[in-house]
């Protein structure tokens, strides 16, 4: 016996919330891959702490999206029983773990973005539940940003090898940033109904904060490319299927299994 996929009934609001929740969920899964493998024990724990904060944020958003959808889907079903095209995370977070430099750079990019987004949601969302989730999450995101930005600076302004690795990380990941800021119908609808900001409004402050981190790391701001990724509309990179297979195996094989 195995569990079938659930069918989503999407509205702009649930799409908007799943984009954020799925981004937290998939990044948490990637960070979990450091468990037992980080360069030092203390960072192993730090990565797991960040992952658990993100899972908490994902749970809250998925549960709320499920409630808004009104089809009886709980957070576990949403986390584990969707097909690939029904996940709406940023393509950036599904990219392979990479080395420690790539991981802390991705954390810095996502934490900076999430912090700005949570701040806006906590201040402006017309949805009480979203405001409450954001008010709690913004504290977590601030720490994630500090922790990861510190490492970007240490490695960027470190040894020849750490700098090379950080430059390689930027070369691989920076092109995925554009997806954080392009605006579409779901985004416009969320803004129109007061659920949350258009993501394009986060671009200027995100670039300013990332530039400050890069300056301190004595790194050049990478050039923008024409590359566009589209995970938030369900069109994922080749890595997504593998991470979902990892995540979903148990719930598919043992439906409703708990421990």
């Amino acid at each position, binding site marked *: 016996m195995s569990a079938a996929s659930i069918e989503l009934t999407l509205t702009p609001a649930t799409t908007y919330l799943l984009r954020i929740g799925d981004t937290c969920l998939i990044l948490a899964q990637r960070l979990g891959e450091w468990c037992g*493998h980080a*360069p*030092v024990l*203390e*960072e192993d*724990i*730090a990565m797991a702490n960040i992952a658990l904060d993100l899972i908490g944020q994902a749970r809250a958003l998925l549960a709320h999206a499920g409630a808004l959808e009104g089809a009886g889907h709980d957070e576990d079903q949403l986390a584990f029983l969707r097909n690939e095209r029904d996940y709406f995370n940023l393509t950036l977070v599904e990219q392979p773990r990479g080395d420690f430099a790539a991981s802390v750079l991705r954390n810095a990019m996502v934490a900076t973005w999430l912090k700005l987004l949570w701040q806006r949601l906590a201040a402006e969302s017309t949805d009480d539940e979203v405001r409450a989730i954001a008010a709690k999450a913004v504290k977590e995101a601030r720490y994630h940003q500090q*922790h990861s930005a*510190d490492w970007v600076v*240490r490695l960027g302004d470190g040894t020849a090898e750490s700098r090379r690795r950080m430059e390689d990380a930027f070369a691989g990941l920076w092109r995925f940033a554009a997806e954080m800021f392009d605006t579409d119908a779901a985004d416009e609808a969320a803004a129109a109904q007061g659920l949350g900001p258009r993501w394009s409004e986060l671009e200027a402050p995100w670039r300013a904060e990332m530039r400050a981190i890069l300056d301190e790391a004595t790194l050049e701001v990478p050039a923008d490319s024409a590359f566009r990724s589209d995970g938030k509309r369900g069109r994922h990179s080749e890595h997504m299927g593998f991470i979902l297979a990892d995540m979903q195996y148990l719930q598919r094989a043992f439906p409703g299994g708990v421990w």
Partner: protein
Amino acid sequence: MSQQTDSANEWPLWEVFVRSKAGLDHKHCGSLHAADAKMAIQMARDVYTRRQEGSSVWVVKSDQIVASDPGDKDMYFDPAEDKVYRHPTFYQLPKAVDHM
């Protein structure tokens, strides 16, 4: 987890003190390796306050702590053994003084 075997290449050791809530003292709770003070504070937060143990952390470089010599233990501490009169438990307190 470090591949380093040469202790000269390891990050310095720090002692971690955590205050559980305002008004209480910072208590020693363990140690960790970190490259500098800023990293040590963040790691102390990540390693030692995950279960709501803290509202403040201190870190001190372990080599900055001056400790008594274990070999001096007898000479330093045993002489206090038979001097119970140093405990202020032999006084009659006035009734008005509660909670001493």
